[in-house]
């Protein structure tokens, strides 16, 4: 199927394709009710409740008024539906905002301001710089004479770099004034979701000449939700609109995340359901037998001799209804409520507010807080997550002289300041390259300061550093740059920019000194990209040593170089460059090749080292969380050396001899396999030793390993507690998360940038750092925090408390439902197994929804251990990780407790209220109050810390129970008119209550005390210790670790000859795999070199001088 788009033809395509109205709504006003109900009823629990509620409409079998089930059911459904409706309304509002955004579009040959939703396929849309693209467009024209424009595609694929888009060749050179009159035909495929592919044809109609069909690719498109950057204007023809855009097609509702606790609750619910079926079956059969043998003799019951065909079913169904409360209808509501509150506690937490930016933590997903307490693996990004992503120029090495080694800051190094003052030519050149070899745009602020807008943080750091050394980049006027050096203005004209790509790993500019008219080529880039281009005579050894030394310190390095160009050489080259730039096929490759022709015989000026500082508290956080039994994997796009250094400095891996790094690398499948096997072998051997073993793998090897040696890699993943994966792409990050998930681990992914979005969405818990790389990660994440160090608090405090509280709440919910259900069962045994309900409808409903829910909800304030203790003994998290507080065996304990309590309540009540007191309503209320009293004490006994609210809820609820029942007893129309007043006047009622409480709680207390004292869990010990406040608090103290940056870095043992890898790693990188695909091995850009291997002892010597 093809889609034919007629450019600027207002009449033709109107009706065929949808307009540009975006709709993310799940519902419309009309289908809301049926669709929402359908969705809610696709869940098992809800189906169950609906079935029960429907069965209750059959008066023959219902034990109680159907309202007692329908009421709560409708309430619950109404609450969920309202929430959905509210969310949908918000989506509608945001859609509306997007739809009503004003855009410039051509209508009937005239440029007009129209609403985004009125764009039709075939319309021409004009965009200005920083505009969001409203629909999928095919580019027709841009402000750039070469037909280029830049887009930021972060919202689409998470990549933060700017991408170039170019107009189709057929449109090249169309005059600005004529653009809106262009007519033509675009043949394109039907909408699909592939954002990397667009194969279409364009044919312009006369007078825009040539009838040739011009091919169009994804490079000629602007896709919806991208931003136009660094381009004054662009215009294009709408080809896909509304929900048919590429983005619209990819948009899916993210799968709701289910926590491990939820899964366990579901499992337990299933078990209870089976138990219920067994009970129903047994009682049903027993009831039928009793009916046939005994009940027929009871003349006062008047059983008909011949019943209807369904007679055999009646009693089992009655028991089904009677036992239906075993699965508490309130559990879902209670859980939703408390989970909402956990999320609020995270939002409210003052200790997780980033003071620098006043960013509080935020829980976007309110349903998964318990999972935080069960995390087993943390997969973390490096840049911006562990580090501040605030690049600061720290050291440099200019023509063999090291600056900044002593004080750690080159800007304060007097030698360098003096060198600048004395205008040492090398230093001046170095500074010039720092200041102008970039794509930074300076913006003058009103107060006279200059704001640099850079695509890369590295460039920004260099420009700032140059400014600090009096080489101030002041202004950019088109192609003319103003540099202010020691109060004199130097002007440079930028003739060409040889852009940075991740293949080339360097960027250069050709500038003309406006005073002298001389031409210069200024380059900067990774050492392996620059050093080989050095002029033949120059010694590069010092520089590579410098690079090595800096990268040992965890600094990012850039080599700076320059060359003076001859006019002729440049002119000749410039022609080739222009030609390459307008090439239609293999443009990237050709440009790279042309650039290569200029970038040679460079004079290396020096090495700049940039520090990406570790965030505050990162080493402590990692150490604490590792003590808590959480394994860390670092997934970074950065390269190996830097990653390892950062890993060392933040306690990620331990230095020798405690730690060992195993390297997996290789370029071919075989190499990777061998390396993998070797590492696996070492792992197996060392797994019994108390040694920190970590493996290091790069993206290339990872791809092979995942594809061909999946099993071996899986085993490695299981064995290894720590891993460093460098040079990995966003999708590989997600793959690794998937791998750990498939090993049944709870994973938490934390990152800050667009490249982490996929991993964050994939993991059980996604945490975003609302950092400098924008807010995409934070938006996609379940939790967003301001700084990495808050992760400690998020997991150990919020996650742990949430897990503990939910574990109690869910089990307690089952306990109280089972309690009342067991009593009903016992009662049926003395009521002729006929399925009589002991309790009336009001009591049953209020018991589940009200009496027993309120006290337990206040449990969200319960804290078993203080935050301080948990932080000092993070090992205690093990109880949550291993699910020690909610599992079948703890559940069996609660099950047994409810059975025991049911027996206590029932036996005591039927004996103390026997004979003349055995009135139905009275006994029912006695039993019910017995249950309420017991549950109040159970909650009290299980509460670890009583705040005023807890007392209020537990004891207030008990009072409320009486008040409510007095009120109900005062209503003449209710069945229990005067009952409660009568009971409260009887001394035997109160005596019975106290007997129930003591008989029910005594054994529980005794058992708990015995366990607490003689079989204490770690939690118990810590609680006791906390209470005593004694010496324990000093025992597990975590000493703050000093930064490892400036201290001696111990040598690492690496199981393989360390092939030193390049250090220059810009933030904006394409996937490294692209390198190998576009250039085969042996291509001129394969700079892989192995000669420069340095001993660390030498590095130390360097440091001393």
């Amino acid at each position, binding site marked *: 199927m093809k889609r034919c788009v007629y450019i600027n033809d207002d009449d033709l395509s109107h009706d065929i394709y949808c307009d540009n109205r975006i709709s993310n709504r799940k519902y419309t006003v009309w289908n809301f009710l049926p669709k929402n109900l359908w969705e809610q009823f696709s869940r098992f629990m809800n189906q169950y409740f609906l079935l029960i509620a429907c069965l209750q409409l059959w008066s023959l079998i219902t034990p109680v008024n159907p309202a007692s089930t329908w009421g709560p059911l409708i309430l619950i459904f109404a609450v969920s539906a309202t929430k959905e409706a509210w969310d949908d309304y918000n989506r509608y509002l945001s859609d509306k905002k997007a739809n009503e955004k004003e855009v410039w579009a051509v209508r009937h040959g005239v440029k007009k301001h129209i609403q985004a939703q009125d764009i039709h396929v075939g319309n021409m849309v004009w965009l200005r710089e920083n505009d969001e693209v409203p629909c999928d467009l095919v580019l027709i024209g841009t402000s750039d004479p070469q037909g280029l424009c830049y887009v930021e595609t972060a919202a689409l694929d998470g990549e933060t770099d700017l991408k170039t888009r170019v107009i189709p060749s057929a449109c090249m050179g169309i005059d600005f004034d004529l653009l809106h009159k262009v007519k033509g035909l675009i043949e394109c495929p039907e909408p699909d979701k592939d954002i990397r592919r667009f194969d279409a044809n364009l044919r312009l109609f006369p007078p825009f000449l040539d009838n040739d069909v011009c091919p169009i690719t994804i490079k000629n498109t602007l896709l919806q939700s991208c931003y136009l950057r660094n381009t004054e204007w662009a215009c294009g023809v709408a080809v896909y609109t509304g929900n048919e855009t590429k983005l619209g097609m990819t948009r899916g509702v993210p799968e709701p995340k289910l926590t491990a606790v939820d899964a366990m609750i579901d499992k337990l619910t299933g078990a209870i359901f089976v138990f219920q079926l067994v009970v129903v079956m047994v009682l049903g059969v027993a009831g039928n037998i009793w009916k046939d043998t005994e009940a027929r003799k009871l003349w006062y019951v008047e059983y008909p001799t011949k019943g209807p065909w369904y007679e055999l079913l009646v009693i089992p169904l009655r028991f089904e209804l009677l036992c239906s409360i075993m699965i508490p209808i309130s559990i879902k509501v209670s859980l939703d409520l408390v989970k909402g509150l956990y999320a609020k506690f995270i939002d409210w937490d003052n200790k997780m507010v980033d003071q620098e930016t006043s960013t509080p933590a935020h829980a976007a997903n309110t349903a998964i807080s318990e999972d935080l307490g069960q995390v087993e693996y943390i997969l973390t990004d490096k840049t911006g997550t562990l580090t501040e992503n605030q690049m600061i120029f720290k050291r440099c090495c200019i023509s063999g002289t090291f600056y900044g080694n002593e004080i750690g800051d080159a800007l304060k190094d007097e030698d360098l300041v003096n060198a600048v003052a004395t205008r040492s030519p090398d230093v001046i050149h170095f500074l010039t390259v720092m200041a102008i070899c970039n794509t930074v745009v300076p913006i003058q602020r009103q107060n006279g300061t200059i704001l640099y807008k850079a695509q890369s943080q590295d460039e920004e750091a260099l420009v700032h550093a140059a400014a600090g050394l009096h080489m101030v980049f002041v202004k950019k006027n088109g192609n003319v740059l103003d540099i202010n050096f020691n109060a004199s203005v130097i002007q440079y004209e930028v003739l060409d920019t040889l852009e940075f790509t991740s293949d080339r790993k360097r960027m250069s500019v050709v500038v003309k000194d406006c005073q002298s008219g001389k031409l210069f080529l200024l380059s900067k880039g990774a050492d392996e990209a620059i050093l080989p281009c050095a002029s033949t005579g120059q010694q590069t050894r010092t520089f590579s040593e410098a690079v090595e030394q800096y990268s040992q310190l965890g600094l990012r390095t850039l080599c700076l170089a320059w060359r003076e160009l001859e006019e002729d050489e440049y002119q000749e080259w410039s022609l080739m460059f222009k030609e390459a730039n307008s090439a239609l096929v293999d443009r990237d490759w050709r440009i790279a090749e042309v650039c290569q022709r200029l970038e040679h015989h460079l004079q290396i000026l020096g090495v700049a080292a940039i520090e990406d500082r570790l965030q505050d508290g990162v080493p402590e956080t990692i150490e604490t969380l590792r*003590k808590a039994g959480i394994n860390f994997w670092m997934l970074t796009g950065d390269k190996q050396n830097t990653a390892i250094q950062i890993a060392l400095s933040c306690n990620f891996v331990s230095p020798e001899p405690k730690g060992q790094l195993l390297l997996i690398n290789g370029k071919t499948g075989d190499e990777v396999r061998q390396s993998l096997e070797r590492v696996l072998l070492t792992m197996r051997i060392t797994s019994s030793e108390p040694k920190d073993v970590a493996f290091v793998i790069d993206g290339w090897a990872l791809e092979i390993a995942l594809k061909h040696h999946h099993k071996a890699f899986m085993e490695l993943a299981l064995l290894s507690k720590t891993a460093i994966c460098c040079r990995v792409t966003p999708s590989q990050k997600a793959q690794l998360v998937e791998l750990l998930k498939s090993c049944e681990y709870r994973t938490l992914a934390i990152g800050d940038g667009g490249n982490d979005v996929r991993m964050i969405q994939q993991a059980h818990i996604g945490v975003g750092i609302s950092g400098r790389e924008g807010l995409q990660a934070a938006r996609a994440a379940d939790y967003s925090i301001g700084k990495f160090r808050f992760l400690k608090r998020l997991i150990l405090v919020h996650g742990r408390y949430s897990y503990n509280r939910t574990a109690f709440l869910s089990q307690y919910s089952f306990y109280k439902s089972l309690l009342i259900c067991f009593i009903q069962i016992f009662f049926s045994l003395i009521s*002729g197994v006929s399925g009589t309900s002991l309790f009336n409808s009001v009591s049953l409903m209020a018991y589940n929804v009200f009496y027993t829910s309120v006290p337990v909800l206040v449990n969200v304030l319960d804290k078993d251990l203080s935050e301080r203790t948990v932080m000092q003994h993070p090992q205690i998290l093990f109880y949550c990780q291993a699910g020690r507080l909610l599992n079948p065996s703890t559940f069996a304990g609660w099950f047994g407790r409810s059975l025991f309590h049911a027996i206590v309540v029932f036996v005591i009540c039927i004996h103390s209220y026997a004979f003349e007191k055995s009135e139905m309503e009275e006994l029912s209320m006695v039993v019910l109050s017995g249950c309420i009293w017991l549950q109040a004490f159970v909650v009290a006994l299980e509460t670890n810390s009583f*705040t005023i609210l807890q007392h209020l809820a537990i004891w207030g609820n008990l009072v409320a129970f009486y008040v409510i029942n007095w009120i109900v007893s005062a209503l003449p129309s209710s069945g229990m008119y005067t009952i409660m007043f009568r009971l409260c006047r009887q001394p035997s009622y109160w005596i019975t209550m106290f*007997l129930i409480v003591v008989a029910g709680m005594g054994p529980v207390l005794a058992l708990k*005390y015995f366990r607490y*004292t*003689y079989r204490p869990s770690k939690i118990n010990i*810590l609680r006791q210790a906390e209470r005593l406040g004694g*010496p324990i608090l000093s025992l597990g103290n975590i000493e703050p670790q000093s930064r490892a940056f400036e201290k001696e870095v111990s040598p690492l043992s690496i199981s393989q000859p360390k092939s030193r890898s390049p250090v220059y790693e810009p933030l904006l990188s394409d996937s490294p795999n692209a390198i190998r695909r576009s250039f085969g091995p042996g291509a001129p850009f394969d700079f892989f070199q192995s000669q420069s291997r340095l001993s660390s002892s030498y590095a130390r010597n360097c440091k001393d001088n």
Partner: protein
Amino acid sequence: MSSGEGSSQPSSKKSRQPKYSRFTQQELPACKPILTPGLVVTTFILVGVIFIPIGLLSLSASERVVEIVDRYDEDCIPSDQEKTAFIQSDKTNKTCVRSLTVPKKMQHPVYIYYQLDNFYQNHRRYVKSRSDKQLRNPENEDLTSPCEPEARIDNKPIVPCGLVAWSLFNDTYGFSVRGMNLSVNKKDIAWDSDKNYKFGSKVYPKNFQQGSLIGGGKLDEKIPLSEQEDLLVWMRTAALPSFRKLYGRIEQDLEANEKITVVIQNNYNAYAFGGKKKLVLSTTTWIGGKNNFLGLGYITIGGLCLFNATTFIVMYLIKPRPCGDPSYLSWNRNPPGN
């Protein structure tokens, strides 16, 4: 390039910065009781010390109750006749004379109960077969739907309808002591709430016990339901298959060893289902009728508490266990990483 969008965000977030409150920070002052041996042992001792006297008190109260229980269903039927046929027949003479001896002095009022054993007033079919609306208001006499199978007769509503009313107990007792009739006060045996509200004073029995199958007692159609106290008592269904219902009161003291002659009209058919019928004369105390359960229960539980407390003390003395000793934490014993 991200700085553009980043810079606008923090400023808008500033307002969202949470306000400090002890609730939101989860820092509400809390008391954290822990189960120290002292606390637990004290609790148990305290409970034991309180419970045993209460138990003794209840037990003595229960023991003070004088109770005469006389099962008469077996003896009030000629042994040579088929029981069910006898009781169902209109013609047979069902009068039965019993003689009871007062064991101890019974202070007035002496309550007269009839006790039925193995009678399932709590059977689902039975307990539901009544129409409270009909009983309350004469306008609702047609609301008989829950009353099946005793709802209507010849399509005329039965008042009171349903199995409960239909199976009304109809044995009667006459008492005499030393040849003198003891008057039985049958006033106010039903709950006030039933008389004043649940059963209407304008609702009169209609079509009651007119069917082919006659259940229990009949009602005087001239007396409104609210004054038919036997019916009211009967319709307070019992929750247990063995129950007593108040028949009346004897408003005079009965001396010890007095012989009471009871003339029983043995009408009610408890034979068909193997039920037992008993006549009970009983006094009451603050705890109610004779019921040793609570007293014994309190003494047992109290004793167990004291026993528990002793055990814990002994355990504590034999094997003292320091509270919160950090050496019990495994990670303090072993180097981390294991």
